[in-house]
């Protein structure tokens, strides 16, 4: 029954958010709260020789200054510091010792009665360093590139497949070839909400922690292991997250510092980071890519080489899937895909919206455009000619792939047929106009998750799972699924998340939440339905005494006979018969691995972009953007569209503006503010159009839904780069495309 699934209902948490009722990690207030301010390292590599905190400590209201010199003894083994998203290596430990491993590393925490005093005290602390030479430039150190270490993470982030065919021979013999190099530098997530943790110190040292996280259970695991506290004494709550985009997949250092201070001072402590400090942890890694493509004269792609070299830290091997997409999207039989890392004196990179995907596809889809131009074939036609129904890496069929329909509907909506293929051929007054397109792809994953459903004595339904809602619409979508499964109005359904007392769910990432938690919600509501039906059968004079479960439906807050809706029992009557107790079920949903592993499972998109360029001044305006998405079943077209639009806006931002610029002489990101790290503003955004293509998929998960968190951004930068080429005849292979590159 789908009264709500597929409908554009408003966000159930919308009112709380716009009225300020929704509270975020730094907004939970308790009596006697102390405030911590973090001091960041002034150098990039070396060691702390001396810390003089005497002036700070003598200030009234200062409680303590924590440094590596006075921190308590903590867990010894690396394993204890590994969170659920930790890559192979040795996780960074704040205040561990005197060593400085990257610029901006937290070196001290000042805790005081007020935030103002803590901040002032922080400015009085003198730290002497002994500097060592650092290496932060990917370009200058690319000769050190090596294979990444493998670890648990490689299950979700498979390394490139083995070479197939004979690339070298076929490429060298190919009549049409391109070789290009693509570069982009570091980007930071910069969610609106800064990282913050409020640790409430409860009786007997129990901790209630309000943390900014994409997975409350992940923060709980980390705190429990590092500080050796039993799980039951650490409760992590995170009902709302003011944007994260991947940055909260791992616990950040303010969590560690707030917990450390609370335990040492035996009182509640809050630590919030500043905007500048938002540039002192994970980021999208700088990446250099080389792509060589060969085609025969008919325009069939025959050879493909895609190599990516990314940066990582000296202590962990963060990896992304950058090059594998090429082998999934195109059919050549002679392929080399390669991925290497260069360890540098930076913090470990971290997943950022479509990690690796937007990186690899941005380069691949430009290279494909270059090849199409060399062949003299329309870029869209070229992609249709080289369309593949199978994932060529794994040699598996797709569980569903309506990309062809994305191309068709997107092109029609955009008016692609009216395009003059000649570069520099289209104008609007004195401005050049360019039309470009690109493909997008991302995984459609499902993970195990648990959920609980409770029909409460007042007849309302409460469903819960310890997942997160980083603004994506999880609250709303889960409410819809639960409401439809048990025939309840959404007003009578309450979905709870972001609390470690709720049934376990994985971190919110990888675009898997709807598929994962949605399946768990569906399963637990079905299980609850069965239990309710059993109770209904036992009611005195029950119309269902001789009826089987498959013969009833849940509709209008009641159980009804499918054949005769007049025969019904209200859910209120059912719960009333349960001796004054609510009726509850907890279930686990597991992906059907046996079935899923026979298929490649992906979400696809086709993106069409129009740019207007003032050639003399180099300014680029993205005047139109159409994104056609094949994302399986769309649970809520409104929140889904918002997800895609958010990705498109970011795609524009990434293509034209975003870059964390490091001064390699000092090894520090210099534009560490939102005034100088440019993200797109309203004035940069013009017409955005989203098309959802119908796609039926019975394999990906019981809902048939594919995640939409990442796919919105994936094809956008390449579509814009290609449009810039069409407008100007200039191929800009280094993002962002700032005006100086077009002068």
């Amino acid at each position, binding site marked *: 029954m789908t009264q709500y699934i597929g409908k554009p209902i408003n966000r159930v948490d919308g009112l709380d958010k716009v009225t300020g009722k929704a509270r975020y990690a730094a907004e939970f207030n308790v009596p006697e709260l102390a405030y911590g301010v973090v001091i960041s390292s002034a150098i990039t590599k070396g060691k702390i020789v001396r810390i003089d905190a005497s002036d700070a400590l003598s200030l009234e209201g200062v409680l303590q200054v924590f440094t590596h010199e006075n921190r308590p003894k903590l867990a010894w083994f690396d394993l204890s510091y590994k969170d659920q998203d930790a890559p192979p290596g040795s996780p960074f430990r704040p205040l561990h010792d005197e060593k400085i491993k990257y610029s901006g590393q937290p070196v001290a925490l000042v805790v005081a009665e007020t935030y103002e005093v803590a901040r002032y005290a922080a400015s009085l602390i003198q730290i002497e360093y002994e500097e060592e030479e650092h290496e932060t430039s990917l370009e200058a150190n690319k000769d050190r590139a090596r294979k990444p270490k493998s670890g648990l993470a490689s299950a979700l982030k498979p390394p490139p497949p083995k070479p197939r065919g004979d690339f070298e021979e076929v490429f060298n013999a190919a009549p049409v070839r391109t070789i290009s190099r693509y570069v982009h530098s570091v980007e930071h997530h910069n969610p609106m909400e800064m990282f913050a943790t409020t640790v409430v110190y409860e009786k007997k040292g129990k901790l209630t922690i309000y943390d900014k996280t994409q997975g409350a259970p992940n923060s709980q695991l980390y705190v429990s292991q590092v500080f050796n506290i039993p799980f039951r004494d650490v409760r992590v709550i995170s009902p709302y997250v003011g944007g994260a985009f991947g940055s909260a997949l791992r616990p950040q250092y303010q969590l560690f510092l707030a917990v450390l201070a609370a335990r040492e001072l035996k009182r509640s402590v809050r630590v919030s980071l500043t905007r500048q400090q938002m540039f002192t942890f994970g980021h999208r890694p700088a990446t250099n890519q080389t792509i060589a493509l060969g085609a025969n004269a008919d325009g069939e792609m025959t050879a493909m080489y895609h190599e990516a070299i990314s940066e990582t830290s000296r202590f962990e091997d963060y990896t992304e899937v950058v090059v594998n997409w090429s082998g999934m999207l195109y059919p050549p039989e002679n392929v080399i895909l390669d991925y290497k890392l260069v360890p540098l004196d930076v913090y470990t990179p971290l997943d950022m919206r479509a990690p690796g995907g937007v990186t690899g596809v941005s380069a691949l889809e430009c290279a494909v455009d270059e090849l199409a131009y060399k062949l003299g074939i329309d870029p869209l036609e070229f992609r249709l000619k080289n369309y593949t129904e199978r994932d060529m890496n794994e040699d598996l069929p797709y569980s569903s792939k309506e990309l062809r329909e994305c191309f068709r509907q997107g092109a029609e909506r955009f008016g692609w047929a009216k395009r003059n293929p000649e570069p520099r051929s289209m104008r609007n007054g004195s401005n050049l106009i360019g039309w470009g397109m690109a493909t997008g792809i991302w995984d459609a994953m499902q993970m195990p998750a648990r959920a609980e459903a409770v029909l409460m004595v007042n007849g309302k339904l409460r469903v819960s799972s310890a997942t997160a809602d980083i603004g994506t619409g999880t609250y709303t979508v889960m409410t819809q699924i639960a409401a439809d499964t048990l025939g309840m109005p959404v007003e009578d359904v309450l979905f709870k998340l972001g609390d470690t007392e709720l049934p376990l769910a994985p971190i919110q990432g990888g675009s898997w939440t709807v598929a994962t938690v949605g399946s768990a919600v569906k399963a637990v509501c079905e299980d609850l339905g069965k239990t309710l039906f059993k109770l209904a059968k036992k009611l005195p004079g029950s119309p269902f005494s001789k009826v089987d479960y498959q013969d009833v439906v849940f509709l209008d807050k009641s159980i009804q006979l499918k054949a005769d809706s007049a025969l019904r029992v209200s859910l209120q009557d059912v719960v009333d018969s349960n001796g004054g107790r609510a009726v509850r079920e907890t279930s686990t949903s597991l992906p059907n691995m046996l079935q899923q592993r026979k298929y490649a499972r992906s979400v696809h998109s086709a993106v069409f972009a129009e740019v207007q360029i003032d050639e003399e*001044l180099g300014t680029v305006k993205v005047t139109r953007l159409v994104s056609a998405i094949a994302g399986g079943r769309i649970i809520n077209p409104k929140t889904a569209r918002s997800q895609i639009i958010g990705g498109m806006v970011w795609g524009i931002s990434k293509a034209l503006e975003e870059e964390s610029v490091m001064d390699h002489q000092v090894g520090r990101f210099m534009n*560490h503010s939102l005034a100088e790290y440019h993200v797109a503003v309203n004035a940069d955004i013009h017409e955005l159009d989203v098309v959802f293509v119908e796609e039926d998929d019975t394999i990906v998960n019981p809902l048939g839904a594919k995640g939409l968190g990442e796919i919105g951004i994936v094809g956008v930068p390449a579509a814009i780069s290609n449009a810039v080429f069409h407008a100007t005849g200039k191929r800009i292979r280094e993002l962002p495309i700032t*005006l100086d590159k077009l*002068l």
Partner: protein
Amino acid sequence: MNSFSYVRPDEIDVAIDDLSVHHAAKFIAGGTNLLDLMKENVERPARLVDINRLPLQTIDDTAEGGLRLGALVTNADTAYNEQVEKRYPLLSQAILAGASPQLRNMATNGGNLFQRTRCYYFYDTDMPCNKRKPGSGCGAINGYNRIHAILGTSDSCIATHPSDMCVALRALDAVVHVSGRLGERTIPMADFHRLPGNTPQYDNTVQPGELVTAIELPAKGFADHYAYLKLRDRASYAFALVSVAVGLDINNDGTITEARIALGGVAHKPWRRPESEEQLVGQSASKEVFQLVADSIIDGAKGYGHNTFKVELARRAIVRALMQASKLEKIS
């Protein structure tokens, strides 16, 4: 941020006296820049003298046919003032090209003159900066200098002045009125901001204890032929990479009789070269003439790596702004 004392006097004399007798005191009006700098520990005043209650809140006609902008009138109220819009549209446009509506609602005319540079190294107290800490060196000259100066630089500083408003004020030959313990004086915009030389810690020529009370606009507003062109890394809420304020007088037969061209984003002060402007006088508007003038204005410009593109960008921007002001090209 350090702790500081705070007063809010009602009279100009009291405010000036208070500032003069207290160590490390600073005036605060809209606070849109000073508070940021205090949070970053770049500015560490011991006392803030809040001038928001001083009677400097009006825009009035002057006897000379110009307009006197009170120092405490907000940027937004100035930009949308009917007289400013009608007689000085160049100024109105320049103000609206800057910051965001929220900031312009808070920022004052006086405060705008005192905006400090956006140099990354100036803002980061862990980095060397001769402007913030004289003698500590310049991180930008051999570092990341995309937003830095190409004209009038020195070996100790290549910072720019970030204001849009000041570029228009410079083109309009505005005059700044200041008041101090020794009385009142006026400073032409040409002399208000300065080049860094060996003392980049001084942004302007206002003396300690002096208070800006008003900005006076001369009668001539170039309302018929003007343009403010701002080039930046995004369409709004970004400082200028290069901006150009142009005012032209063109008589009935199409001859240019007067020209003003001021550049922002390229120097430690709004940049003008009157002898280049002179070249336009007596000429008819044409792209060729404008190109010659543009070359002349940026003569001697020097890039430092990341900002080298600004030399060519400035040249093109001058030509474009002149084309727009002379109505040879529409403003898009």
